[in-house]
């Protein structure tokens, strides 16, 4: 017993969880700040949240190239984790920036919102740095549970309730699959540590034909597929994205999705390495299905949020191409793509926040008719994000897709890349449609209600800079992604 | 030669016989105490309020409980037309049965040694010694909530529903306080087995030889935990002054408004059975169980009766709490105190080592 305790003490390495620790503590502290603040006063909480995110970001960056192992190999803060952590931090920061005025407009300025985002981010960071199925699961759940709340945050709006509930039900449902898969993997290998499972498979190669192991692996992956909204497990995405508060939708589509991808990469590339042949086929099919379904259904969407939801499904499909590639370029490509996606998608949602009206959030295509003339700067920014989502140079969307498809082609999946680009071509249509309404039609309204909230504008500017920077001179960040990839 | 513990594998027959005997004794005693606890309560409260209590049935009214029981047996068993019949019938059983089951893990006497066929056997005076006995008791206490919820919902009547909901809220609130308060005990005893806890309370207080005249009962080490647990338990079983769910004057008996006949009697019995269980647990956890100057089971019964008297006494003395006061006390007084107690105990124990 003494030995065990000694060992446990030695294994604690707070450096390995420092960024998420900072966010958790900040989250809890701000929760108290929130409850002691008068109702409606939330700005200071938002700024404190951003400050803590910056601190966590600095700590993460300082840990670059300095892999920390903690808690007996349950946590591993390596470059991979650091990169994804940064994505989550950026996503959270942008979401917070675009939230405060939005909450005031929606008449629901509640301070708990920000701590919840911080805790979600902390969960995402556990998830990306977890090398133990328990840690991954725990991170996933901390993330999910906070997001359930955030998705249904406006408790007096039925749409929001519904989004929260749907997210909750399907999230919990998928958690069941994930756990069952983990249980079976544990049963076969006798351990929950990712590297130990890999070692076990190495020692017992016939494990990969073990029915229990294969079933476990697939069930676990199913759980992850729900989280990254891969077709046919994507059903929740449009509803939830449409109903949830817009900043949360933006955040959800970037940070948590990136975290789910991170865990998926870690688990598949390390743990299930032996199943590569079978898994690439699965990923292949799912990737094609996901992008096709996302793009095709997005074609006839009128509601912008819903359209972006389907587009985000399609983008998950593109990112999955990196999984199929199963090589360094592919995994680094996913890293880079998720970063790119964070900027472009969150930017697009930030614009939706500005042009939405209070309460009536269902922004349709008609709602942006002629917007480009009445609010030229918004129009330009929105166009940049849309071009990025299309994947056109010189925006980041192009470099991101390039990275991903390069991975696939390097592994010989040329037809997958072809299907990928054909899907991009399909997606052009619905993104262009937004621009058609924005620029090619005469404005019907004067958009007097559109106020450029300063903080939201800052988030848009940051996103624009990010999109252009990653599009024009992406070399250094791509290099970082390469160092972080598997 | 060390005595052999009776197990099913080495001596199946003896084990079975002993088991059945223990169960039978425990049950009969339990039912008797339940029956006469009602009598005792009426008598004692009567005396305290300078009344006589029951006097007519039998000598000094001693047959009163039996008469009550018979009366209830022959009353009409009604199921209101709007009720859900199955759940309605299930509810009282769900309340009573767990409180009976809970006694299965309580040690009610010191070990019994006897020789059979030249082999020395030892029989623990306990129906079964689960190594997580406390958890079992808490689980059973938790099950009781279902009975009340079911009663409230199945009756499909406003008073019953309100009573049931209120009672549930109350029970779970105080279950927390009760559960937390005894954590400090386990920190000292290092076991969840009730028998183990009793054994841990042997010897002089805090192991100091100079204090050998004071037993090492946890009531001395953990007075706060004791108080908290007693109060919380009382509330958990809806005893006055925490009997809001049944509050006759406000909610017309709460969740048992619609009940009659033997089903009502089961609710009634459950309350007293719970009282016994709680007394027994408190005695075990804080007063050294069967240890004391007399035979094991006598010590134990004395402690139980003392607690029963205490409960009745409280009933006679205190007025009923208001609901907000009740919840306030559970959440804002007892819960923090219990948590603080754990922290303080932890620090104290570590410093002591």
């Amino acid at each position, binding site marked *: 017993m003494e030995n065990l305790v000694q060992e446990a003490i030695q294994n604690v390495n707070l450096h390995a969880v420092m960024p998420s620790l900072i966010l958790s503590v900040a989250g809890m502290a701000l929760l108290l700040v929130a409850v002691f603040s008068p109702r409606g006063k939330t700005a200071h909480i938002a700024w404190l949240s951003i400050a803590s995110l910056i601190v966590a970001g600095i700590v993460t960056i300082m840990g670059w190239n300095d892999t920390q192992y903690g808690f007996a190999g349950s946590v591993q803060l390596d470059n991979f984790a650091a990169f994804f952590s940064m994505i989550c931090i950026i996503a959270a920061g942008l979401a917070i920036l675009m939230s405060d005025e939005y909450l005031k407009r929606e008449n629901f300025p509640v301070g708990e919102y920000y701590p919840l985002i911080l805790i979600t981010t902390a969960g995402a960071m556990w998830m990306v740095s977890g090398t133990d199925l328990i840690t991954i699961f725990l991170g996933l759940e901390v993330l999910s549970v906070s997001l359930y709340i955030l998705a249904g945050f406006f408790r007096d709006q039925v749409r929001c309730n519904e989004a929260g509930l749907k997210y909750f039900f399907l999230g919990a449902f998928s958690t069941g699959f994930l756990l069952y898969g983990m249980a079976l993997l544990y049963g076969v290998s006798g351990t929950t540590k990712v590297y130990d499972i890999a070692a076990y498979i190495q020692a017992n190669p016939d494990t990969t034909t073990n029915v229990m192991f294969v079933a476990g692996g697939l069930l676990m992956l199913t759980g992850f597929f729900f989280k990254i909204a891969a077709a046919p497990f994507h059903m929740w995405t449009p509803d939830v994205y449409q109903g949830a508060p817009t900043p949360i939708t933006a955040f959800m589509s970037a940070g948590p999705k990136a975290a789910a991808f991170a865990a998926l990469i870690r688990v598949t590339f390390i743990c299930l390495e032996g199943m590569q042949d079978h898994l690439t086929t699965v990923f292949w099919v799912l990737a094609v299905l996901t992008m096709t379904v996302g793009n095709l259904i997005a074609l006839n969407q009128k509601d912008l949020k819903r359209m972006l939801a389907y587009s985000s499904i399609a983008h998950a499909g593109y990112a999955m191409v990196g999984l199929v590639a199963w090589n360094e370029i592919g995994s680094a490509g996913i890293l880079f793509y998720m970063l790119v996606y964070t900027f472009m998608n969150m930017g697009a949602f930030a614009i939706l926040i500005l042009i939405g009206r209070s309460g009536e959030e269902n922004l349709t295509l008609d709602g942006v008719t002629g917007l480009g003339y009445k609010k030229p700067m918004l129009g330009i920014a929105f166009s940049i994000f849309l071009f990025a989502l299309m994947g056109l140079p010189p925006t980041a969307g192009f470099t991101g897709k390039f990275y991903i498809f390069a991975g696939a082609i390097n592994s010989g999946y040329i037809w997958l890349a072809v299907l990928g680009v054909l899907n991009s071509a399909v997606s052009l249509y619905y993104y262009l449609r937004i621009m*058609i309404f924005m620029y090619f039609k005469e404005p019907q309204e004067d958009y007097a209600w559109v106020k450029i909230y300063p903080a939201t504008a800052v988030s848009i500017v940051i996103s624009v800079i990010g999109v252009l920077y990653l599009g024009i001179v992406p070399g250094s960040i*791509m290099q970082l992604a390469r160092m972080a990839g598997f | 030669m060390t005595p052999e513990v009776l197990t099913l594998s080495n001596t199946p027959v003896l084990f079975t016989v002993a088991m059945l005997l223990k169960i039978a004794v425990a049950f009969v005693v339990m039912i008797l105490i339940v029956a006469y606890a009602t009598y005792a309560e009426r008598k004692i409260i009567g005396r305290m309020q300078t009344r006589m209590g029951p006097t007519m049935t039998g000598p000094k009214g001693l047959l009163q409980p039996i008469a009550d029981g018979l009366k209830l047996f022959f009353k009409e068993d009604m199921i209101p037309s709007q009720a859900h019949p199955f759940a309605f019938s299930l509810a009282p059983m769900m309340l009573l049965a767990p409180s009976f089951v809970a006694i299965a893990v309580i040690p009610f006497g010191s070990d019994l040694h006897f020789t059979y066929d030249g082999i020395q056997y030892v029989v623990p005076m306990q129906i079964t010694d689960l190594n997580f006995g406390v958890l079992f008791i808490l689980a059973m206490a938790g099950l009781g909530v279902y009975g009340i919820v079911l009663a409230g919902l199945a009756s499909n009547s406003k008073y019953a529903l309100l009573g049931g909901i209120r009672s549930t809220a109350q029970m779970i609130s105080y279950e927390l306080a009760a559960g937390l308060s005894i954590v400090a005990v386990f920190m000292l005893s290092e076991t969840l087995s009730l028998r183990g806890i009793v054994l841990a309370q042997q010897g002089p207080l805090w192991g100091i030889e100079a204090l050998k005249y004071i037993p090492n009962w946890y009531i001395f080490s953990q007075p706060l935990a004791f108080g908290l647990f007693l109060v919380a338990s009382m509330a958990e079983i809806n005893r006055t002054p925490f009997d809001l769910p049944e509050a006759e004057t406000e909610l017309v008996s709460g969740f048992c408004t619609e009940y009659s006949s033997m089903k009502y009697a089961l609710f009634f019995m459950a309350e007293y059975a719970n009282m016994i269980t709680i007394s027994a647990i408190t005695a075990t956890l804080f007063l050294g169980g069967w240890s004391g100057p007399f035979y094991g089971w006598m010590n134990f019964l004395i402690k139980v009766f003392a607690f029963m008297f205490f409960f009745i006494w409280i009933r006679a003395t205190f007025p009923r709490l208001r609901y907000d006061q009740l919840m306030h006390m559970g959440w804002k007084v007892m819960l923090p105190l219990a948590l603080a107690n754990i922290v303080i105990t932890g620090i104290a124990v570590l410093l002591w080592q």
Partner: protein
Amino acid sequence: MADNLLSIMTFFPLVGMIALLFIPRDNDAMLKSFALAVSLITFLISLPLAFDNVFKTSGGMHYREFYEWIHVGEFFQMNYNVGVDGISLWLVMLTTFIMPIAILSTWNAVKKNTKGFMAMLLLLQTGMLGAFISLDLFLFYIFWELMLIPMYFLIGIWGGSNRIYAAVKFFIYTAVGSLLMLVGIIFVYYYAIQSGSPVNGFGIQEFYQLDIPYGAQFWLFLAFGFSFAIKVPMFPLHTWLPDAHTEAPTAGSVILAAVLLKMGTYGYVRFAMPLFPEALQTFIPFLAFLSVVGIIYGSLVAMMQDDVKKLVAYSSVAHLGFVMLGLFALNMQGMAGGMIQMINHGISTGALFLIVGFLYERRHTRQISEFGGLAGKMPIFATIFLIITFSSIGLPGTNGFVGEFLALMGAFESDLRWYAVFATTGVILAAVYMLWVYQRIMFGKVTNPANENIKDLSAREIVIMAPLLLFVFWIGIYPNTFFDKMNPALEQLLQQINNQQVAIVEVVQPVVANVVDTK
């Protein structure tokens, strides 16, 4: 200065565009003059290229600039790698030359949102110049796609009544093709890496040295060729062109015809043909067939049009058929003819669109039946129109003759003889539809009262047309100015195509075939 000439030339319009954004939006005159000034300065910057005699002696790349751009370890490297040779030289010049004309042509035509219009034009110029000078496939792709965005807005915002349809069609057609090309580009790169060949990022000069197996070449040529064929446009993929041309504003049509379409043919010359010479051999009959079909079909459809602009648009399809046919002849005459025909088409079709624009500005209609007898009312216009018509038909003495003649002759001397025979009918058909439309518009009596008070060309319009006319005759009479600088590069190109052919026919590489046999 000379070291960075190409970069300065390319990015000057972009800088100008950014500066333009700070000019108040309602100051139309200022916006226009500024844009014009920017485009003129760009033209001046590019002038030294035209007078540099180094192109006469060497067919290689000149004015090279090379900077590392994106370097991601062993994953991939992209470089800023630019340069011009005799082939791209004249296309670059054409671009810088046409742009001031296009801007001048919109002086009064664009009424709404001048700022956006000018910004888009300047952005477009950067894209076009960049695409012509890129020696790195990745860089080329970036510029190639960059051209899409401004053109999309030019058509969509300032176009005619059916502009949305035309803009989206243009965008999606072009983007689909280019996306497939992207896959091809990435594949070539990794093929080069894996085959151990020396690689300098996505530099095409290194890619020229690759021995890509036939199986891969086939698909790659298809990917590249498809993309360029859309842009050219070749026969079955041409349907976006009439829509885009018709709906685009005059400046847009001019640039689209003069420069953007050259992107496709330039792509063939620079990338598809030399990179995949073996596959080229397979495709030549097919492509040549499509070119001839394009020539005849374009001419016939042009004949049927009621709308002048549509007529010009379809004539473009026919003209570019000649270009393609010349290029696929794979000999000096054909190549030179194709190349010069690209310039010619830029000048004459650009001029035709300007002429249509003049008409449209005056009458706000493009229906041929609305006009008639304009010759008497506007003599200067009639003269200019006639010259341009001759140029378009390819009358000797004008530029069109030189190009078409050389292209057809090249084709005739190569394996494409029979194609050339059929293509020749296109020349006759061109005469038919061009002269016919000229006759219907200019001659006869003024039947439509709206044409009674029609004004002749203004000074500005004459200034716009003058340089075009100059080049019509210059190329028509003394094309050697251009050929001198083009020939060395073309020779080198032909050598590249033919060498590779021989090399590949000789070397059989079964190992490589496995690599290419994709999953």
